[in-house]
């Protein structure tokens, strides 16, 4: 569980988005099975902050 960097509330991981635009800049991060960089999207239920990070 990720804590919101703005308010500390636990964030909700609600999406994985394939980011083709990031693939050329970060070829090492490309998932070979999916063909792009997978970005996790997390939302804060308290302040609404959105966190986007590469899937690990």
């Amino acid at each position: 569980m990720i804590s919101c960097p703005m308010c500390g509330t636990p964030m909700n991981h609600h999406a994985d988005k394939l980011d083709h635009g990031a693939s050329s800049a970060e070829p090492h991060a490309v998932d070979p099975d999916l063909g792009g960089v997978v970005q996790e999207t997390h939302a804060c239920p308290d302040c609404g902050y959105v966190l986007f990070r590469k899937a690990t």
Partner: protein
Amino acid sequence: MKPLFIPVILGTPRQGRMSEAVARFMFGEVSNREGVQTELIDIRAIPCPTADAGDAIKDQGFAASVARADALVIVAPEYNHGYPGMMLKHVLDTCLKEYIHKAVGICGVSAGGFGGTRVIQNLLPVMRELGLVTIFWDGNFSNVQDIFDSTGNLLDQAYVKRTDKFLKELIWMARVLRYGRENVPLE
């Protein structure tokens, strides 16, 4: 309950744009909704260089508005059966994470009788790839030169009822998606 934030995007920078009257009408209708805040985002006012893309040219004000948004209303004129590539698509492409699992409704604008149906159809796959969720009501503003007077006042009141249906659906979807973003885990 925290108010929804639903900005209206005026999607063309052209001089003499008839879509401005539509965008201002939609902005007024959204403003009148209880529990909804809005903002009129004029694509013309967004500084967006064309020599690069994505984060490199992202306008922080636009990105912040979209990040705060629960839904978007896009007002797009139909130019040769397509959408305004300059600057609407270019500006939309500067963001990604800001859109995911948010609702969008599209208002097509045309000088002819089809109400921008083709620009709406052409925008749908773009919306999907950006991570937005489209509603099934559209705004179709046909013969736009005839439905507003020279000062931008609406002459055809049928658009009020049509817009009511459009906004009810958009607000419902915005509420559901906000709940989902904040409470429903991917797995």
